[in-house]
């Protein structure tokens, strides 16, 4: 804000205010990071250490959190006994498969929607965005019945198709916005120079390639993090990481260490991808309504 350029005189009220602001920021920082830190730390604790808590009201006892022997046993157990390697593979195939199908078909459709004017285009776009907005549970009710009768429940292709119900409209909608930003002039110039349609299209590829790549990553993320589709449609043969994590909850004892480790395994790759496409993140998560 412009206020930076205006000389501020120190007054008690002002310094009290800035202390409040700093405290608020620290609180927000702690509030955001603490759960993540606890998850990471707990995944390295054995069962007894994870359950250690200071006495109620004993503020000095917070150090108990760091009083443990780090053990990688939970991670080893997940990958050796609980087949998490397989579930990770399932997650990857399902989310990547759906992302590639969605972005490939989606970018073609988006290009067409961006360039052509035709009657009913608005209605078509509205249908596309409302498909994306539909509640997952509501979509799942008929999809489950259809997939059951065609034997797609519990298979990876079924899961890929299920993820495509939200990834494809997302890809079309967001990539249309992307193509809208590419000036017509490039293709016009190319065609003036004697290029045919495909060659003209190839001219703008370098401009849109980074965006297309970023939205593939975002589609992977949506699929990877999905739980509802995976638990109902993928149940049985196509278990993904979130479902496998949920299944660690057993009625007798909940294996918190394993769950936290599974959480770390599920989350860390996605955080890494998130940092990678950070520039496109807000655009992607707001359906292209907000750009940074």
């Amino acid at each position: 804000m412009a206020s930076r350029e205006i000389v501020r005189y120190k007054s008690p009220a002002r310094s009290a205010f800035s202390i409040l602001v700093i405290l608020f920021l620290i609180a927000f920082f702690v509030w955001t990071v603490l759960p993540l830190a606890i998850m990471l730390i707990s995944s390295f604790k054995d069962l007894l250490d994870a359950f250690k808590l200071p006495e109620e009201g004993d503020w000095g006892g917070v150090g108990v959190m760091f009083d443990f022997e780090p053990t990688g046993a939970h991670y080893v157990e997940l990958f050796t006994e609980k087949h998490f390697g397989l579930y990770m593979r399932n997650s990857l195939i399902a989310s990547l498969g759906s992302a590639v199908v969605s972005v490939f078909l989606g970018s073609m459709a988006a290009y067409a929607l961006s360039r052509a004017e035709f009657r009913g285009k608005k209605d078509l776009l509205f249908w596309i965005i409302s498909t994306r907005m539909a509640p997952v549970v509501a979509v799942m009710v008929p999809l489950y019945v259809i997939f059951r009768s065609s034997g797609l429940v519990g298979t990876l292709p079924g899961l890929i198709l299920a993820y495509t119900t939200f990834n494809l409209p997302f890809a079309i909608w967001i990539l249309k916005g992307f193509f809208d930003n590419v000036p017509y002039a490039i293709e016009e110039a190319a065609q003036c120079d004697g290029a045919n349609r495909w060659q003209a299209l190839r001219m703008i590829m370098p401009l849109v390639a980074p965006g297309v790549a970023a939205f593939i990553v975002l589609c992977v993320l949506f699929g990877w993090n999905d739980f509802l589709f995976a638990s109902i449609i993928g149940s049985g043969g196509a278990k993904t990481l979130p479902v496998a994590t949920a299944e660690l909850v057993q009625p007798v004892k909940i294996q918190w260490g394993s769950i936290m480790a599974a959480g770390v395994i599920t989350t860390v790759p996605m955080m890494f991808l998130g940092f990678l496409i950070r520039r496109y993140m807000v655009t992607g998560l707001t359906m292209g309504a907000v750009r940074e």
Partner: protein
Amino acid sequence: MAVNATHREPPEQTAYRGVRRVDYVPQLFNNQPARFYLMWMLLPAVLLLAAISLYPFVWLIYMSLHEVQLAPGKSDLWVGVDNFTRLFSDKNFARGWVTLFKYSALCLAVEITLGVLVAIILNNSRLEKLFITIFLMPMMMAPVVAGFLYMFLYNGTFGWYFWLLRSLGVLDGGTILGNKTWAMAAVVATDVWQWTPLIALITLAGLKRVPQEQLEANMVDGAGPLRNFFSVALPNLYPFLLIAILLRFMDNFRFIDTILIMTGGGPANATKILPTYLFDVSFKFFELGRGAAIAFTLLLLTILLGLFLTKMFEDPARKIKPGGEG
């Protein structure tokens, strides 16, 4: 092929913030052969989308009018609009809507307040980059994992947040997730933790678009920072906040993973928002016909929200084009 600069219609001119924009519809893409080409590019996606969304939708309507039999060999029973009329007398259905709106309103109120506050503080500060990086971390987490993480933190014997609340003396007896009020607060807190950063990011993007001249003019007129925020920055932020509200509200009933994991709708239906109820009806009791009827009402809300959202993209005064400079 002739490249023709004449337009089929007179170009639409829009003046926005003093910038004259001429919408140019190029002839290049709007002749018969070009359109034929583009339609072929559009077709595969539209066909696939129709197969996985329109076809299920027809099925949904069919199911909502039948009593669906899942056992093989049995055929569905026609019940007419029975599934719908039964909803009127279904207490859980009405309560599901109320809880959904209560839950969303609580989430949004806290998220918007915190998000805007954080964004204003961070805007143009040295910490902006650091915080933006941190903001990404909760958002990237699978909602299921967030649900488990918070369940762990709220746990009545070894949860750190439980310990914190007890130590502060706010929580009397019982557990967090076992108490109606606290359970609601707990699921809201989880949503707030995960999605306040998104609101902050959207607001930050919006703050960057606030015209500097307006702020300066206002200051020359003697307005302080507070006045400046409310009379200049906030009006400029409205479209961004509206987008944020619509998107978050939409996601509140799109994703129910955290609630499903943490409380399953309990205790005593205190956190049973409508989609959770729908999940129970369809995939716990397997009453798919009734589920379809509930799903249908939810989809109506979706369409309503969609209308709002597409308006946001179109309205030239707001001019937030998808991927545009808005």
